């Protein structure tokens, strides 16, 4: 963490960033393999589709990153997506103005996250338990609205869903992609250049030291979950626009995908190490694997899970090597 504060020194590899570089290189290699093996793989559209299909996951993973950076975790994100999709579908069906729906849904996410953060911070409850309960609550509540899937035919949402922004090379991206990229950019800015962001790293490094340094630990820890709640509700909104439906079973177990994306993107689960851009590449890498398996055609979808798991293993091993090497260096110095 202290390395991050030091000035950027040329092209020297920073220890904490190796994992991110590795992810980016792996992403390029996988994409390259696909381009060599399949004729239509190497197009901008396939690349853009990675973003279109995973925009919501990128947003959620960014929120998750904040929670993990403080050494916590947010398990409620997947259920939150289902909840948000259900609320917006239900409200739109009743003819509520879409703008109000969007604002309301985001508010729900913010409040939800804040309550979780409050419980975690104020009563020193374990984030696992609180967000687990949050997950049950969100999923159960979405079933309370309706057990069946609701389709959305609101003109604003459908036009948002089919909106395509050309980016040249005869390819296009959706509005979702733009939003997700903005979220990533904002998150990178917050983590790198604001007091709040630095406090997040400090808490992840050592909560007690952060407290002794006079940093607003309690406030930051609550805000982190607020941000995560906001991101998951925004991700839910993107997912709703993407699929144009609300369903209580949406994104079942997706919280683990978000966590896996964070790990592949170089965020240490003990907190304190990682960046907001890493998880994006984590998501993209899993996305490439998915499209590779899709292009291959004969492999079953469960191979995706196995491949992602293998990847996780490789990255975890890599992280361990880095940590062990660092520890060795430190002992030499001392």
């Amino acid at each position, binding site marked *: 963490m202290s390395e991050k504060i030091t000035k950027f020194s040329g092209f020297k590899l920073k220890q904490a960033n190796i994992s991110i570089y590795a992810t980016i290189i792996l992403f390029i290699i996988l994409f390259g393999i696909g381009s060599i093996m399949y004729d239509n793989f190497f197009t901008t559209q396939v690349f853009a589709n990675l973003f279109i299909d995973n925009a919501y996951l990128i947003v959620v993973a960014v929120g998750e990153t904040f929670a993990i950076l403080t050494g916590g975790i947010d398990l409620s994100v997947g259920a939150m997506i289902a909840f948000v999709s259900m609320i917006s579908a239900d409200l739109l069906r009743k003819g509520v103005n879409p703008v109000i729906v969007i604002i309301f849904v985001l508010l729900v996410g913010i409040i939800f996250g804040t309550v979780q953060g409050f419980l975690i911070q104020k009563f020193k409850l374990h984030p696992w*338990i609180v967000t687990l309960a949050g997950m*049950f*609550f969100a999923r*159960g509540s979405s079933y309370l609205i309706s057990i069946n899937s609701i389709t959305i035919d609101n003109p604003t949402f459908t036009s948002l869903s089919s909106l395509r922004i050309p980016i040249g090379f005869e390819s296009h991206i959706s509005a979702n992609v733009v939003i997700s990229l903005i979220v990533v950019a904002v998150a990178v800015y917050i983590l790198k250049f604001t007091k709040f962001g630095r406090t997040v790293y400090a808490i992840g490094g050592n909560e007690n030291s952060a407290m002794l340094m006079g940093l607003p630990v309690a406030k930051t820890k609550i805000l982190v979950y607020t941000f995560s709640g906001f991101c998951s509700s925004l991700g839910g909104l993107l997912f709703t626009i993407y699929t144009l439906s609300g369903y209580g079973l949406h994104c079942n177990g997706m919280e*683990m995908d978000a966590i*896996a994306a964070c790990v592949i993107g170089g965020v240490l689960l003990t907190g304190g190490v990682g960046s907001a851009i890493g998880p994006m590449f984590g998501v993209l890498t899993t996305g490439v694997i998915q499209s590779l398996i899709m292009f291959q055609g004969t492999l079953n979808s469960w191979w995706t899970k196995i491949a992602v798991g293998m990847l996780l293993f490789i990255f*975890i091993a890599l992280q361990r090597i880095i940590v062990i090497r660092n520890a060795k260096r430190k002992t030499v110095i001392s």
Partner: protein
Amino acid sequence: MERSKLKNIFSKFYSMSIFWPLMCLICIIFIDFLINPGFLKIEMKDGHLFGSLIDILNRAAPLILISLGMTIVIAVQGIDISVGSVIAISACVSATVIVSNGPVILAIAAGLFVGLLCGMWNGFLVAYIGVQPMVGTLILYIVGRGIAQLITDGKILTFTNKSFIFLGTGYLLIPIPVYIAIAVILVMYFVMRKTSLGLFVEAIGVNREASRFSGINSRKVIFALYAICGLLAGLAGLIICSNIKSADANNAGQWLELDAILSVVIGGTSMSGGRFYLGGTVIGALFIQSLTTTIYSIGVPPEVTLVVKAIVVITVVLIQSPIFRKMLKTNNMLSNYKAKKVAKI
């Protein structure tokens, strides 16, 4: 004299870790009794005992097994979120053996062995490679269901082998899974409380470095704990798949890891490791299962189960939180003080 002795016993019981989980369990069973007075009735029908309580015990058996495994893993500051996937793998493996007309013993052995293997993989990652438990077990959580689907080729396997089904649905006065659960509880109790292993576990949970200096081979112990956890998950997988007479790679044991973690926490074991309470965990698992059964029996739509579970869990955890209790106390004191003041005036 007599009274103070009674009070002493009560305060001793009150300070015991098992007090709160037990109170919760008693509360929920009492609520059940109020709603449906026939709840506590246990009948004898053709040599079997029937009743809601027996039903809860029966259904809670797999959860108890997993929660016990989870307890010892959490005690060393770990966590095993892959148990649901391990259940799916073990269920699919043993179902494959049964479907291809293999002997029952082989099916059981295969299921247990696969569970043990998964546990050893987790243990290897956590203890020897030094991966954080959550990440290490996340791998198997994701891959596990993929592997299970690979074994069954994506199909749901159903079988009618009588002797294998007996494991999950059979009765000897009470259901067979209850016997298995009791046996495992006894063995775990013996191993963890009557041998030095339990002491090692608590020592590692409190301070791994210190335990290393005092000569405990913490790696070996942690590895063993994860292996045991996997083995128990394998056993639970066998019970679950023989109970529903089929193995479904996607849905077998889903959410069970979360229920198990909840049982452990409700049972009073802290997520930050150290002291662990096997009895509390068993009570916690029974509590979770009775909660589910209650929700079903009072006619609430099953979809609401999750919401109720969430609220109950948060309440229970809050009650257990010392800070919350302190807050309640100070509030009480404040109001008492105010009342006194008013009375004086």
